[in-house]
């Protein structure tokens, strides 16, 4: 692959791997969702899982989250094999998964509440992350009073407030409008830079994946596998405004579309 070769950075060494997926297979009754899939997620980077509908992206993400059991294979987070959900990972849901009976601050603090942290302390932490996603003033609002974009900010603040090392995001922006989505993408880039966390990001959008990712894993169905790993290099350090005009950005978008085209009916 021409683009893969243009990747300047070599693949990170094992010490720098935050999440390591080894030989994962998953079957739902007859459907083979994943077969013998292996993939590494470097620490402090954002890796996108990109692929046609039904290729097993959500399945893989939920296995990493510990919400689903694989039929075989292992997932290691920080060198430890996982056996269920853990405080080292936090999930951001496509449909936000906010508790409609609880206000914003309680929703954001919910992860901390489940960890038994005292109310005043967890609300102070929640307050901070509510501010960091730009929702100051909405602490006492209920989810149904917020727009889709604001709801996802709540979901993001909740995931950030538990201070997990790995953030798992399943198409987090697919239910928000295009302009909000662009703002989210820019915010996400800033977040990856500032938070030194590992992000695993599922998306349908090729442009979005190339725009935000340090590494893009292309998943293909039948049988499900990682067909390609792309590491954009030249535009990552540039300012957000220039990325979409970068020749490498445009090349990668075209190349991914070329490999996915045949899977779109």
């Amino acid at each position: 692959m021409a683009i893969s070769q243009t990747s300047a950075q070599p693949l990170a060494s094992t010490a720098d791997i935050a999440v390591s997926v080894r030989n994962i297979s998953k079957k739902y009754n007859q459907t083979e969702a994943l077969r013998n899939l292996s993939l590494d997620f470097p620490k402090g980077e954002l890796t996108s899982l990109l692929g046609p509908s039904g290729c097993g992206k959500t399945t893989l993400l939920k296995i990493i989250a510990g919400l689903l059991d694989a039929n075989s294979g292992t997932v290691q987070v920080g060198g430890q094999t996982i056996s269920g959900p853990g405080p080292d990972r936090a999930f951001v849901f496509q449909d936000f998964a906010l508790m409609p009976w609880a206000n914003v601050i309680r929703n954001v603090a919910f992860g901390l509440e489940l960890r038994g942290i005292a109310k005043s302390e967890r609300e102070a932490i929640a307050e901070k992350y509510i501010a960091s996603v730009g929702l100051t003033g909405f602490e006492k609002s209920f989810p149904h009073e917020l727009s889709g974009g604001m709801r996802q900010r709540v979901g993001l603040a909740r995931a950030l407030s538990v201070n997990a090392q790995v953030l798992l995001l399943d198409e987090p922006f697919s239910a928000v409008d295009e302009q909000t989505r662009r703002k989210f993408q820019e915010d996400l880039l800033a977040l990856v830079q500032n938070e030194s966390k590992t992000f695993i990001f599922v998306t349908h959008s090729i442009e979005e994946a190339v725009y935000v990712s340090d590494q893009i894993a292309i998943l293909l169905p039948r049988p499900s596998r990682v067909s390609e790993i792309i590491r954009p290099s030249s535009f990552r350090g540039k300012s957000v405004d220039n990325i979409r005009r970068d020749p490498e950005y445009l090349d990668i978008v075209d190349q991914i579309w070329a490999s996915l085209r045949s899977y779109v009916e």
Partner: protein
Amino acid sequence: MFILGYKLPAMSSLILWALLWEAIGRLELTFFVPAFSTVIMTLIELVQTKVFQKALSETAYAFSVGIGASVLIGIPTGILMGKSRLLDEMLLPWVNIFISAPLTALVPVLMVLFGFGTKTIIITTALFAIWIIILNARAGVMQINRSLVEMARSFGAGPFTAFYKIYFWAALPEILGGVRIGVIRAVKGVIIGQLLVSIVGFGALFELYSSNFLMAHFWAVLLVLFTLAFAIAEFLSFLERKVAFYATKR
């Protein structure tokens, strides 16, 4: 309701019906219907008597214990049925049988089993109320958003925590609906139980008044019961409206 541009208070149409009742009573068409004012006067006297207060407290006791048991057993059972396929398949047929069964026919059996007293009445009340509470809690849990449950799990909630922090609240609008209908059915249950046992509470009073043709007393007690039942049902719809803000947005 508006008349000539003035907003009438809720239920002011009842005044009209009371006047009609009064008229029929004054006409002395039948001994069965005394005038409304007579009934009210009797009621005022009656509520001050020991007999009435005893009947009311006995009824309130049986009613609240019966409802309490139905709620405490019914809600968790319904939630567990909604969560567990196995439990659901085991219990659902029974719930469906009992919810449609003519429970009145069962009261004589209960009398044999539990005696002619408060115990039988409590059990009758619970039997009237519990099934709809179970079914509604179950329905509430079955419509729960899967990702809400996954969210709780991913942030470290165990089964018990998920039960009372997610399942209960997510199903609360349905649960309250079930409790409201359950309470209305329990009013029937407690009165039917007392009538059949007929030596306790209002059952004893009804027995006394109707066999002595004390119609004003009879109607007065009936009026009290109707008002109480209505007030309880209204209070529960008020609670239901408090959670309605998220019932439609789940």
